[in-house]
């Protein structure tokens, strides 16, 4: 009962935090990303395959209530659909911007699952097979998101390699997009993070150059122009100088 009271107090506090956010634009971008389905698809990024796989899994779960022979074919259909998504996850590039827009998905899905659990936990379980069908869907979902995650790891490695190549090519400030623009550098760069990434991923941990943000990318954590005259600097000295107040 004490736990229940604490949880209610936490909920009230959270409502207050939503109504009075630290950065109101963050709340607006979260809502826009959610309602505009940015978490699923972005025009310049493509489809967020792991999110699509999660959605498919939820759509397929009710088929577990079918009679056994139909459930078998539902399982076959699920396998085929997930196989298609797994292939797409391997072929299509990962979508970092959509992934960021999906940051609230886990809590929203948790709410649906928790509500379902609370409603059904005291009902008699007529169909013992449901957990096995659900387990099979979980297997398919795991394999699909695993492939998508491996693809994301590869894309991240490519992004780092492309950033390294740019930073080696020049010294000082490099305008964005760089002259030898590679697609992945545009797609996987966070709008305000390029100068900071240039510090973190400086070749041989010596900061000689900084890739600038895209024009109009908004506030940035530090001003690259004020750091540039002090370059080259070792990574730790560059970090300290960047955030010196």
């Amino acid at each position, binding site marked *: 009962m004490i*736990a*229940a009271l*604490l*949880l209610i*107090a936490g*909920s009230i*506090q*959270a409502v207050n*935090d939503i109504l009075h*956010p*630290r950065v109101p634009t963050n709340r607006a971008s979260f809502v826009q990303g959610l309602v505009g389905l940015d*978490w699923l698809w972005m025009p310049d990024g493509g489809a967020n395959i*792991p*999110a699509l*796989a999660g959605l498919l*899994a939820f759509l397929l779960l009710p088929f577990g209530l079918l009679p*056994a022979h139909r459930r*078998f074919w539902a*399982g076959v259909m699920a396998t085929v659909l997930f196989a298609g998504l797994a292939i797409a996850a391997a072929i299509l590039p990962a*979508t970092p911007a959509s*992934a*960021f827009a999906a*940051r*609230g*998905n*886990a*809590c929203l*899905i*948790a*709410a649906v699952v*928790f509500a379902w*659990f*609370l409603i059904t*936990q005291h009902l008699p379980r007529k169909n*013992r*097979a449901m*957990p*096995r*069908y659900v*387990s*099979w869907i*979980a*297997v398919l979902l*795991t394999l699909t*998101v*695993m492939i998508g*995650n491996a693809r*994301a*790891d590869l894309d*991240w*490695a490519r992004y*780092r390699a492309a950033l390294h190549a740019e930073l080696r090519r020049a010294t000082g400030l490099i305008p964005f997009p760089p002259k030898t623009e590679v697609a992945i550098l545009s797609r996987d760069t*966070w709008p305000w*993070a390029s100068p*900071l*990434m240039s510090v*973190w*991923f400086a070749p041989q941990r010596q900061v000689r150059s900084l890739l600038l943000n895209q024009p109009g990318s908004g506030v940035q954590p530090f001003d690259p122009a004020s750091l540039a005259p002090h370059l080259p600097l070792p*990574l730790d000295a560059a*970090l300290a100088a960047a955030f010196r107040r």
Partner: protein
Amino acid sequence: MDGGAAFLTKREASGPRRLSAGAADRVSLILIAALALLFLTQIWAGLALRGLFADGAFYAAHLWLARGFVIIEPSRLTAQILVQAPVVLGMRLGATRPQAVALLFSLSSTLMPLLLTGSAVLILPRSQRHLALIPLFVFLAGSMSSAFASVADGPFAAAYCCLLLLMVAVAPLSPARLGLILLLSIGCLRLYESTAFLGPLLACASWQRARQTRG
């Protein structure tokens, strides 16, 4: 067509159309193997500093500069403290170079939701292991869709709430576990904005369990 047995009821599987007695176990084993592979890709992400994507680079820089916790979002105090705790511990143990701090932060933010999900599964009694699908689905369908941006606190908060739900509603109660439930509930006071709708559901589960226990 052995895999088809995974979709049959126990009665059907033991009847004339019995396809395979161990089908359910095999599905569970495949699921564990697939999850192990997923865990490896998450470790890969952590080691490759994918956790620095988006705000991650900013958090890692400030953790190194502050040599301690960096609470930028007070409304997510619990989530930020728990994700940063391994980094701060690492710094206290001597991992003070910026690359080491970035690596610890990347690993922690990438792996923490998965580790909490694993804990939620492990606290379940054997007879209730099928409920492991609750935290698993939240993790697979929700958290993995934002895995590239592991700096986001949402997946952590969801996994935290899954652990609390299963402790409150299902796991056997002992004085130590009641203490842990209380501690986790205190953490919900400033966990994440989504506590606005997850909190009442967890409170409802607590109330149901309290009634059941008293009854």
